[in-house]
């Protein structure tokens, strides 16, 4: 079906919906991108960006709706189908084979699809050079991928996407780990791709970089495409659209109410670190104090050392230099087990990789860190274990039909609550948590926030590490800003807002001379 008069857009997704175990990740999303058009795609964590990308690139298939390429209906069952239709993807961490050369990586798979058994030629194809030239990286052709920087790898990934008849490239957070100069170069390349008539879908959290790169911006919220704005839309407009007005107001309210009580909650010092640095030097010379009753966020880009700092506190990473005192006593933590022994619990991010035992039941998961509490001479007392887990499931509102069901059968939010229960089971006085609500739906998120509030109300402390800045603004009492391994500022009270956090993160990245905004006081500015 062709629209009369005009050529159909390069790609057209109409009424696309996708559900995961009953929960809608995308509902009725329509998106059209013309050849040579650069489209921005923004939305909060869990808004459905990843799902939409996965459908457009063949990694998932939609429950409802159709995808048309140049007006013709296309059915993608696997990534190869999308590739054959000229759709390539560039991820934050490019999927290249590290031990092959750049040219070999670009040609990888081409020979397979044509004549499987033909011998590989040693000569690099001219198309490969052309693609590398387009991204200005022709001199890299014979280098081994493992010797390249992250930015260079991304150029290679782009060249790879173009080299096989790529007509559209999806960029999934391409600048998340790039230095500013590298990002600027990437934007030049993107300009060249547009001039070459390639359609682009550009997904990012960094709203400030959209304007120079894209023509139009699609905003997703809770699985729906809520707006299509021009590329020049202001950051504030986009943030409002992404969050929805009411949501922002409600969460602002929570934040204000919570911070008005910070001062009453504050207790003695739990963590006192001075001159901290890890062995690899990802952060240096950091001083940090955490007191009972507060939620302290460590905020920074992936290379800021914020995650590494929290891992050091949790015993999951070795301290290189400096003194870390827990409850007034200097400690050396060699493992999370030792940290647990000192009353520090750790809820790591990425629950699939670092949290869940896929072969365990809900009960086994929750009891894992607290087995010494329910064993006699190494033998598990079944009744005590049942009691402990039942208590914790109630406390953390884990809804599972039976405690013996597999942990992997729970929804993301419930898995996360179960992992929180596991952390609580060891009776920590400090909880270090990374991205506690990643992939959790809004109700589940609220429940997890409430748990964190309960924990600090009971006199424990929380060190929060979250890439979701609105979460940081909503639930933390204090935010410490890190940039390239050093503390560059601290926000608290009224100054602790999402825009300020974002500025604190990116002003440094843009190379601005001003240091991050300073807080309104050591803690609890309150109205």
């Amino acid at each position, binding site marked *: 079906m062709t629209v009369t008069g005009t050529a159909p857009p390069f790609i057209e997704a109409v009424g696309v919906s996708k559900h995961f175990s009953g929960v809608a990740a995308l509902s009725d999303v329509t998106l059209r991108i013309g050849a040579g058009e650069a489209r921005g795609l923004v939305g909060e964590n869990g808004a459905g960006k990843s799902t939409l990308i996965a459908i457009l690139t063949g990694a998932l298939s939609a429950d409802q709706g159709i995808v048309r390429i140049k007006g013709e209906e296309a059915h993608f069952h696997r990534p190869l189908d999308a590739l054959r239709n000229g759709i390539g993807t560039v991820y934050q961490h490019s999927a290249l084979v590290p031990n092959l050369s750049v040219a070999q990586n670009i040609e990888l798979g081409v020979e397979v699809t044509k004549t499987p058994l033909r011998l590989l030629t040693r000569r690099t194809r001219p198309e490969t050079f052309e693609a590398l030239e387009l991204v200005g990286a022709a001199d890299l052709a014979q280098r081994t991928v493992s010797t390249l920087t992250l930015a260079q790898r991304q150029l290679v990934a782009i060249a790879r996407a173009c080299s096989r008849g790529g007509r559209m490239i999806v960029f999934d957070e391409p600048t998340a780990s790039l230095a500013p100069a590298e990002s600027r170069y990437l934007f030049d390349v993107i300009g060249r791709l547009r001039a070459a008539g390639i359609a682009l879908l550009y997904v990012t959290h960094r709203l400030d970089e959209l304007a120079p790169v894209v023509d139009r911006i699609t905003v997703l919220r809770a699985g729906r495409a809520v707006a299509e704005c021009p590329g020049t839309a202001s950051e504030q407009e986009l943030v409002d659209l992404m969050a929805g007005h009411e949501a922002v107001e409600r969460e602002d309210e929570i934040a204000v109410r919570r911070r008005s009580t910070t001062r009453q909650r504050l207790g003695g010092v739990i963590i006192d670190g001075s001159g901290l640095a890890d062995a690899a030097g990802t952060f240096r010379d950091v001083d940090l104090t955490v007191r009972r009753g507060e939620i302290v966020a460590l905020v920074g880009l992936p290379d800021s050392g914020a995650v590494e700092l929290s891992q050091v506190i949790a015993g999951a990473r070795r301290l290189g230099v400096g003194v870390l005192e827990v409850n007034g006593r200097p400690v050396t933590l060699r493992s999370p087990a030792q940290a647990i022994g000192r009353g520090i619990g750790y809820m790591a991010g990425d629950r699939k990789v670092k949290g869940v035992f896929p072969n365990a039941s809900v009960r086994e998961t929750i009891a894992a860190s607290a087995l*010494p509490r329910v064993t006699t001479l190494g033998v598990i007392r079944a009744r005590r274990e049942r009691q402990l887990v039942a*208590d914790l499931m109630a406390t953390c509102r884990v809804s599972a039909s039976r405690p013996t069901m597999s942990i992997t059968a729970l929804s993301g939010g419930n898995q996360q609550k179960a992992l929180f229960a596991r952390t609580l089971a060891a009776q920590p006085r400090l909880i270090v948590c990374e991205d506690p609500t990643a992939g959790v739906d809004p109700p589940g998120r609220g429940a997890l926030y409430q748990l964190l509030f309960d*924990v600090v109300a009971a006199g424990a402390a929380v060190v929060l590490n979250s890439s979701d800045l609105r979460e940081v603004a909503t639930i933390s009492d204090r935010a410490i800003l890190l940039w390239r391994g050093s503390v560059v500022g601290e926000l608290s009270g009224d100054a602790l807002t999402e825009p300020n956090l974002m500025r604190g993160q990116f002003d440094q990245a843009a190379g601005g001379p001003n240091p991050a905004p300073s807080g309104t006081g050591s803690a609890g500015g309150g109205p």
Partner: protein
Amino acid sequence: MSTKPKDAVSPPVELRPALDEAPAVDLAGRRDGGDTGDRAARRGIRVAHLSASPEFFAFVFLVVICAVLTFSRSTFLTEYNLQNIGRQTAVLAVLAVGLLYVLLSGGIDLSVGGQVALAGVVAASLAGHMPVGWAFVAAVACATLIGVINGLFVGVAGFSPIIVTLAVGQVLTGVALVFTTSGPIQPSDSHYSDLATANLGALPTIVVAAAASVLVAHAILSRTSLGRYIYSVGGNETAAWLAGIPTALVKISSYTICGAFAGFAGILASSRIGSGDASVGPSQMLEAFAAVFLGGVGFGTARGKVIGVVCGALILGVISNGIDLFQLNSDWQYIVSGAMILLAIAFQVLPARLAARRS
């Protein structure tokens, strides 16, 4: 904040009581509902769960094979023949249960063949110089020590288990062969074979010994924190470490237990043949792996139970016996057990695949 001494569980830090208070009522209500209302429903779930488990498939397999043999061979269901199967299976079951520990912890042990060979040779060599019982203890201790060494290589040094245990196994088999260059070692003690030939009532002693060790293995896996830790480390080592589980110690323990069981299997085997023979190791090892996989243990999934492994060993024992009863060439054993393993894995994987496709 009030401190209420709730139970014998360790003294609560300040955090717990405050968190406990509100939901305690809710909790009690929920538990009552669970116990009175839908007990039948829960039983239904449990039966459905059971029938989907790989152990259940292994058990059904075993029953079917036994039924076929009972109806086709009148000699199958006789006391003499059943004792025979028991003796044949005992060694295999013990060795396979040891392997289970290592597989559940996410590793693999290719040195158990060498451990079996070495334990047999050590026991047979020492039997003339000390009471047979002590010779057996020394042989098991020897294999256990090898297990500790494997565990240190894998758990502490971080070497790849498949490479380390392959190498250790080669060395052990080599040592056992060097000791027996002039043929299998004939122990100078006439009681050496008693363990394998004597009976306790109607049951062969060797079966009782194997059953006892298997029960201990089951208890450790299902009732102790070590058992729970083994499953956790095999399921997700990173998550286990971050949750405070001493992963290195858990791995060392699983290889050590595997070594102890391999040593025990070694003396049982040696007692059966009445000598210390280095050549029994390798074939026993392959059969033990077959038993483990027949018993529904996944490779790299850390799923599996002792009961399944015992069923797996019994299936192999019964098949081998059936081949004897039909007076077939014993080489058929390999073909049949290989086919059985393929069938078993098909039964485990395909239903899940089909279910995934349907949803």
